[in-house]
């Protein structure tokens, strides 16, 4: 394992210190491990708080700022943060209008945020939870842990964040978050496995001509192993898998995220985007907005995920609203 770290144990603390030094416009609490906006809102606004394991950067710290998250609490690498952190994050940014927890659907994240919501309620903070579960690779039933939350998190945080910025009330912001999640589906393909600092070796072995289809963002293997094929075929497979599960028809518009998992050159992500674009065009579906780059990563994993969010004029208008965060910024 080769990593630019001091020790596996200190990665999170060291990265947070660096993040704080790099982003003076944000407040980084190194003790509670909370990243929050330094400026408090002039009038009370709904606070968006997210959090999850580290190793997915820029998610979530890179999305704290105007028009998106108010705070986040990073856990250890690939490990959900603890309720104390979540509570501290909520307390740091609660301005009286309530807090929305944006939670990716993983057993650990869900349980810890549930305990945190109970603690917050005891402190008199009103909390709503938006559960993100967009990964169609995973079987979804009442008997399973359900679908994972992946790329749609960016969509939910951007769009619900824009609405919160406009002063919408708690229930409305949470309902919009749910709506964006329901309109989103994702699927990922990995060319290599991620190596966590703690494990020190790749989560799984993958021969030179093999890929894992249906992987998550925590280094776990996917649903099946396949042969590496040209980008055109992989993109078609991913698009078709998503469309088979998505309420999208010819004439519809989407927001598309072609997301790098951390170890894939941007050049290749643009190749994939071109193929996704072409495949959707064949189906009569137009990409109205897009992001291409590393947004929800899995450390050094090579590969990509595609997220498609069915768009409508309301969602597009909120998508276009100004945002100013380390990783997403436009006006």
């Amino acid at each position: 394992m080769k990593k630019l770290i001091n020790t596996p144990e200190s990665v999170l603390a060291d990265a947070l210190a660096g993040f704080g030094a790099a982003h003076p416009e944000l407040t980084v609490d190194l003790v509670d491990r909370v990243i929050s906006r330094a400026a408090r809102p002039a009038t009370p606004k709904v606070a968006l708080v997210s959090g999850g394991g580290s190793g997915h950067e820029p998610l979530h710290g890179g999305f704290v700022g105007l028009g998106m998250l108010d705070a986040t609490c990073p856990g250890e690498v690939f490990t959900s943060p603890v309720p104390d952190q979540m509570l501290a994050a909520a307390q740091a940014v609660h301005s009286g209008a309530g807090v929305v927890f944006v939670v990716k659907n993983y057993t650990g994240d869900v349980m810890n945020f549930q305990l945190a919501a109970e603690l917050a309620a005891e402190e008199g903070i009103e909390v709503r939870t938006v559960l993100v579960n967009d990964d169609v690779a995973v079987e979804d039933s009442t008997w399973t842990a359900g679908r994972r939350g992946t790329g749609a998190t960016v969509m939910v945080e951007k769009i619900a964040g824009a609405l919160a910025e406009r002063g919408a009330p708690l229930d409305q912001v949470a309902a919009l978050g749910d709506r964006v999640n329901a309109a989103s589906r994702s699927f990922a393909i990995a060319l290599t496995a991620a190596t966590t600092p703690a494990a020190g070796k790749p989560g799984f072995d993958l021969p030179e001509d093999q890929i894992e289809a249906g992987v998550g963002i925590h280094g776990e293997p996917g649903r099946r192993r396949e042969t590496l094929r040209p980008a055109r075929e992989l993109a078609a497979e991913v698009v078709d898998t998503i469309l088979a599960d998505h309420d999208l028809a010819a004439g519809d518009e989407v927001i598309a995220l072609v997301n790098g998992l951390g170890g894939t050159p941007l050049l290749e992500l643009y190749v994939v985007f071109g193929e996704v674009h072409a495949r959707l065009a064949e189906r009569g579906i137009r990409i109205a907005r897009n992001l291409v780059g590393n947004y929800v990563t899995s450390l050094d994993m090579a590969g990509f995920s595609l997220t498609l969010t069915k768009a409508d004029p309301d969602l597009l208008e909120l998508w276009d609203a100004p945002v100013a965060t380390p990783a997403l910024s436009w006006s």
Partner: protein
Amino acid sequence: MDTTLALAWVREIASAVEEHEAQLTELDSAIGDGDHGSNLRRGFTAALAALDGLDPASVGAALSRTGTTLISKVGGASGPLYGSAFRAMGTALPGERADAAEFGAALAAGLAAIRRLGAAEPGDKTIVDAWTPALAAFELAAPTGFAAAAEAAAGAAEQGMRDTVPLQARKGRASYLGPRSIGHQDPGATSTALLFRALARVAEKAG
């Protein structure tokens, strides 16, 4: 069990977790995200620190403190699950000592907390699959004394742990693998077996 034994148990778990950290991580890498070992080590190291100098008034005090520490230090799935279990056990043991029957009831409270929070059924390939047979064995053997009950529970937990190998996971991260989770031993069931083996060890030493 008395307060000294409760403290000794947590210490014994801590050293077992430290010794088996790599194994837990290895198992979690195969069907999860490879952090179960470091998660539990971080948690029980913190628990040791939290218990340091503590003179617990009840058997449950040390366990409650351990549970609270696990919840606020571990994260992931195992943090809230084990944390809630220890807190529930702590609440169930308010006295200065507990006999085998009382301790069995505490173990039952622990399992109930795990199932309330995680909603896993036996057979889902989780902690529940080691804890459930361990509890049953403990209760069955309780009349023969604490040490014997703990020994029976440890053996049953280990059997439950091994029995997770052929199961397909339906809860936790391993469930994302679908049929590919079959053939691997569950990391959480493995750490539960360590927990019960630690109990048997301190109980035997205490005589």
